[in-house]
C-alpha cells in the first residue's frame, strides 16, 4: 500500500501534446478511476505511472520514492493489461511466476504465492495449462493473478473489463470489488465506462482534452459536476441543457426562465452567481417528469419513447427548440408526437457561458 503523487506531469508525442500539467494525490489504499473518452490521455497517464512512457516534465512519487526515472520493473507496480498480455508459450504457473523469478524470489516462496493467488482467483486447475486453452474470463483472472503475486505497492488496470462480454463484465466487476477489499492495496483503473468507475472507485478523475476536469467521489461527480463536459459524460442518458435567463425568485434565490417565461426555482442565491452573458439549465432525466398538458412548467412534444421496463425515457422537444429527456413510470402510456406537460422535480444545475457549473452550497 502506498501513496501516489503526480506532480505537474506533461507529455507530448512529437509535436502533439497529450497531457498538460497533471497533478494528483492518491492516498494509500485508495481506489481511483481515470475516466474519460478515448484519446483524453488517461491511458498515457497510466502508462507514465507504470514507466511504459517517458515523462517529459513533472515528477511521479510512489510511496516515498521518486519513480519517474526508474525502469518499469523497479517501481513496485503491477499492471493488468487490456488484452491481458499473457505470455502464450508459458504455462499459467510460469506466467504468474515470471516476475517473481526476475526478482530472484526463492523458489518455495514463488510456489506459495502463486498457489495462494490461484486459490483466491479459483484458477488452480489451470496452472499447468497454456493461455491459449483458457476462455477470455479465465485469462482475465490469470492476468489479475500475475499482478497479485508480486504484492505490488500499486495496481494498475488498463480497461481490464473491455474485452469481456456483458454478463462476464458484470461478474468480474463484482469480483474486482471484492478482491479490492481483500488486497487492501492502492489501485488505479483506467476506463471509459462510467458504470465501472462509479461502482469500483473511491474517487474518480474525469479527464478530457489532456487535462483533469474534476476529481471527486462518484456521488460528487454525479451530483455536483464541475463543468458541462463532466455533466454530459457522467450519467446515462446524459444531462440535458436548456438556454435560460436568470432573474430573482423567492428568498433571493435564482430563478431560471425559459424563452416563453416559464421559470424554474433553483436552490442558489442569485447573489452567489457570477455575471455571465448566457446561462444554461442542466436537468438530469430523473429531475424531469411528464405530466398532463397544461399542468406543468411548459408543454412539449414527444420526439420518441424508450421503454426500459422499470422506467420509460421520454425524449421531449420544447417549443423554443430545446430538447431534454424526462423519466416516466415503466407503465407510461406516452406515445410519439403526443403533447405533454413537463415538470421539473429535483435538483437542477446552472452552467455559465464558460461552461462552469454552479451548484447549491453543499449541505453542512
Amino acid at each position, binding site marked *: 500500500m502506498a501513496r501516489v503523487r503526480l506532480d505537474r506531469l506533461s507529455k507530448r508525442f512529437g509535436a502533439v501534446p497529450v497531457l498538460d500539467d497533471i497533478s494528483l494525490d492518491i492516498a494509500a489504499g485508495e481506489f481511483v478511476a481515470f475516466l474519460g473518452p478515448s484519446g483524453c490521455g488517461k491511458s498515457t497517464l497510466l502508462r507514465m505511472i*507504470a*514507466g*511504459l512512457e517517458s515523462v517529459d516534465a513533472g515528477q511521479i512519487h510512489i510511496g516515498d520514492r521518486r519513480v519517474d526515472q526508474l*525502469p*518499469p*520493473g*523497479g517501481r513496485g*507496480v*503491477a*499492471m493488468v*493489461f*487490456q*488484452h491481458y*498480455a*499473457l*505470455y*502464450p*508459450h508459458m504455462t499459467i504457473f510460469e506466467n504468474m511466476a*515470471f*516476475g517473481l523469478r*526476475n*526478482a530472484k524470489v526463492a523458489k518455495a516462496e514463488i510456489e506459495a504465492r502463486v498457489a495462494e493467488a490461484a486459490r483466491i482467483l479459483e484458477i488452480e486447475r489451470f496452472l499447468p495449462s497454456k493461455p491459449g486453452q483458457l476462455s477470455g474470463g479465465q485469462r482475465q483472472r490469470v492476468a489479475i493473478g*500475475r499482478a497479485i503475486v*508480486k504484492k505490488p505497492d500499486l495496481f494498475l488496470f488498463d480497461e481490464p473489463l473491455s474485452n469481456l462480454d456483458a454478463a462476464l463484465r458484470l461478474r468480474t466487476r463484482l469480483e474486482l470489488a471484492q478482491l479490492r477489499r481483500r488486497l487492501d492495496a492502492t489501485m488505479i483503473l483506467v476506463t471509459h465506462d462510467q458504470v465501472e468507475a462509479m461502482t469500483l472507485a473511491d474517487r474518480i478523475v474525469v479527464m478530457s482534452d489532456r487535462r483533469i476536469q474534476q476529481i471527486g467521489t462518484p456521488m460528487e461527480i454525479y451530483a455536483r459536476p464541475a463543468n458541462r463536459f463532466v455533466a454530459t459524460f457522467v450519467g446515462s442518458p446524459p444531462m440535458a441543457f436548456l438556454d435560460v435567463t436568470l432573474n430573482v425568485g423567492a428568498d433571493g434565490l435564482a430563478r431560471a426562465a425559459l424563452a416563453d417565461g416559464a421559470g424554474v426555482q433553483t436552490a442558489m442565491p442569485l447573489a452567489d452567481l457570477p455575471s455571465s452573458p448566457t446561462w444554461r439549465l442542466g436537468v438530469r432525466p430523473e429531475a424531469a417528469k411528464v405530466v398532463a398538458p397544461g399542468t406543468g412548467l411548459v408543454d412539449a412534444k414527444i420526439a420518441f419513447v424508450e421503454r426500459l421496463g422499470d422506467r420509460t425515457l421520454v425524449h421531449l422537444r420544447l417549443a423554443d427548440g430545446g430538447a431534454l429527456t424526462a423519466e416516466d413510470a415503466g407503465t407510461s402510456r406516452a406515445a410519439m408526437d403526443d403533447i405533454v406537460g413537463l415538470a421539473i422535480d429535483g435538483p437542477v444545475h446552472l452552467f455559465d457561458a464558460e461552461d462552469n457549473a454552479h451548484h447549491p452550497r453543499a449541505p453542512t
Partner: protein
Amino acid sequence: MSGSAQPVGRSPWEARAGFAVMVVLALIMVLPLLWTLGLSLKANNELLRDTGSVFHGPYTLENYGSILRRAAVFRWLGNSLLVSLCTTLGVLTLSSLAGYGFARLEFPGRRWLFALVLFGLAVPEQSVIITRHQMFSALHLHNTYPGLFLPGLSAPFGVFLMTQYFKAIPVELDEAALLDGASRLRVFWSVLLPLTLPAQATLGIFTFLSSWNDYWWPLISATRSEMFTLTVGVASSQINFAQTSGLGFLMAQAVFASAPILAVYVVFQKYIVRAVSGAAVR
C-alpha cells in the same frame, strides 16, 4: 491445404481425364530423374557402347561402390554441411537480434538504417562479386570456411522477415515483461524469441537450402579441391566430362549428391515449400 477455395465441380469423366493428364505431366517431370537413376545403375563400359541399354539389365551398384572409395566426395559433403550450418546459425542469430532491434527499440537513425537494409534486397550477389573477391583475397579468406560462409550472413532477407514477425507480436507482451522486472535482453530471450519459432523455422530452412545449393560464391572463393562444397565438387567433375571416369559414375554422383536434399525434402516438404514461397513473396 484446405479446400476452402474450390471452383465449381466437374463431372467424373472430366476428373478422370484431368487425372490422366496430370499423371503424364508428372512422368515427364520425373523422367530425367529416373533416367539419371537408371544410368547410375549401369556399368560404365556398357553405357559407352549404348545408353539405351538402360532399359534392360543387367544393373549394378558398382558406380556407388566407386563413390564410396573416393574420399573427396565425402569431404565436399562435409564442407557443404559445415558451411550451410554455419550460415544458417549465423543468419538466425543476426536476423533475430536485428529484427528485434528494428521492430521494438528506438535508437538514433533507426528508420534510415532499416531503409538501408531494405535497399540491400535489391543488390544481386553477382554485382558485388568483384570487390568482395578482392576483399577476401586481401584478408586471406579464400579457401577457408569463414570465407565460404561469411558472405551468406550479409543477406538482408532474414532481417526483413524477422522485423516483420517481431512487429506482429503485441507490444503489450514486452510491456508486461518489463513490468515483471525483465531486462531488455530477457524480454528478447524469454518472451519474444520463443514466439518467433515458426519464423525461425522458415528462415532456417530457406537459408540452409540456399546455402547448400549455392554455386556462385564457392565457385569463386574455393579454388582448392579440398575446400570445394558439394555443388562445386560435382561441377568440377562435370566440366571434366570428357576425361571422366564414366557416365554411370557421373550419374551415381548426381544421385548421391541430390539424395540428402531430396530425402530432407520428402520429410519436411510442407515446411520447405512454406519457407521457399514465403521468402519469394517477402
